[in-house]
């Protein structure tokens, strides 16, 4: 075992890498319009709203990120065994992964939009050319950081799982986190920015997404600009906290105490969520429409 100070430094580094990975992952999925909010982009032409937004239906984010991370990890691992510099190996691995990311993203856009012919939605070639580079670049950053934190866990903390497997698992995790936290900001707020703040999407308005920008037509790259202000960093903090807290407790405490500390953290999370809920209920109050309906019915 290494001494605790070095270990803490490494855990902090893992947390930092995870934070960057989470933020880049979320912004990438906003540029590509992936995962659940994409259901609205998919629905839009059907309700008569044509758009110039990317439609990157590679799959849900968890399998997609497991895909990029495993490709990158495999390539990096082969290069590491050929005595490559580790950082260079990560960079080449992440580069190969981002190429495959781009290939799959382009087929998803062409395939999905070609299947919407009857609604008159065109395939814009410039949308493909403009969006692929930022998608691949954000994917590169996320994958590179995931490789870094998997390597620290595997090499320095001697985790029994192989390097590629750890990258796969963290890929699944970062995808699950990105699609459950940051994507909400994109789906509920950015896609329906013309609707009043403080309301969920009324089911009757499904698919009527915003397609106009401040000037001209909205592109998905504008969405990253918006989500980088809140959704992206929040996703990064989530993934960073998970990686940091989970490894910190096993490093600092012995086996029994690590479990106890874990339970304590979970209890604190429940309390924090409750306080947040109480705050929100107090500050926002009930919806006037609902109260009116209640009085009208009574």
């Amino acid at each position: 075992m290494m001494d605790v100070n070095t270990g803490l430094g490494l855990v902090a580094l893992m947390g930092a890498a995870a934070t960057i990975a989470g933020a880049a992952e979320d912004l990438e999925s906003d540029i590509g319009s992936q995962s659940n909010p994409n259901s609205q982009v998919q629905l839009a032409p059907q309700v008569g709203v044509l758009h110039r937004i990317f439609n990157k239906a590679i799959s849900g984010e968890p399998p997609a990120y497991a895909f990029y991370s495993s490709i990158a990890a495999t390539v990096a691992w082969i290069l590491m065994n050929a005595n490559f510099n580790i950082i260079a190996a990560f960079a080449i691995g992440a580069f190969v992964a981002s190429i495959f990311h781009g290939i799959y993203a382009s087929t998803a856009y062409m395939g999905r939009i070609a299947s919407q012919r009857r609604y008159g939605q065109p395939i814009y070639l410039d949308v493909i050319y403009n969006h692929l580079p930022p998608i691949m670049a954000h994917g590169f950053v996320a994958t590179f950081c995931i490789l870094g934190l998997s390597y620290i866990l595997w090499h320095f903390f001697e985790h029994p799982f192989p390097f590629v497997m750890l990258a796969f698992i963290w890929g699944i995790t970062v995808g699950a986190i990105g699609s459950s936290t940051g994507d909400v900001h994109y789906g509920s707020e950015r896609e329906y920015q013309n609707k009043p703040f403080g309301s969920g999407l009324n089911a009757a308005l499904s698919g009527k997404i915003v397609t106009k920008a401040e000037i001209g037509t909205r592109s998905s790259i504008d969405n990253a600009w918006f989500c980088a202000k809140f959704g992206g960093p929040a996703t990064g903090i989530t993934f960073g906290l998970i990686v940091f807290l989970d490894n910190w407790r096993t490093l600092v405490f012995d086996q029994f105490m690590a479990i106890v500390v874990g339970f304590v953290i979970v209890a604190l999370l429940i309390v924090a969520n409750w306080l947040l809920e109480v705050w929100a209920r107090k500050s926002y109050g009930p919806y006037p429409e609902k109260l009116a309906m209640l009085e009208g019915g009574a």
Partner: protein
Amino acid sequence: MDPITIILGLIIAGILIVIGVHFIPVGGAPAAMAMATGVGTGTVQLATGAGLTGLVSAGYMYHFANVPMSYVLLSGAVGSMLMLGITMLIGNVIYIFGVGVPPASAKVKFDPITKYRQDIYVSPGTEGQGIPTVCFVSGIIGAFLGGVGGALTYVLLNELGLSPAISALIAIGFFLANAVLAAYNIAGTIEGFHDPKFKRLPRAIVSSLIVSGFIAAILVLAAMGGVVL
């Protein structure tokens, strides 16, 4: 360990995973637009993310010498709970500060745990939004069960004499198969143990029993029965 115990253990693990998935509040695609209560992603996706994070913790714990099995299982559970707990908390932060909606459930009039009134806080035209306390607690229970199930699979396969890597691989596959069965039963969205859909749980348990039993049987037959052909 004798083969029967391992088969039974694997079946229990499968059932734990299936039950755990039913506890996790997922709103599917609608929740990403704040149209439904729960986490805004798919059932399988979220459960797998939590379960595999637990598997990393459990695998790390199992790697120490002379660790009681209960520690490994609890470690898996804690890993899953941490992942899901933090995800749900920050998810709520986004609902509250990014979208501006208070968390509320549309399936019950009063939160069974906090007794808070729910229906007047549901945004008009939606099926609720965010993760109120009852869903949060339900999710934590689900992550606990899923984490234990995943860790139990991993431990039992190791006991069967498979290498850590193969054990983890099969544990991942086993987790996915069971989570997908549960997801088919849920069909889209569930809020937690207070949701009426939760009553469908027995059907998922039976199907998990069959599928897990078959997978456990062929694995034990192969690893213990040795070379047949």
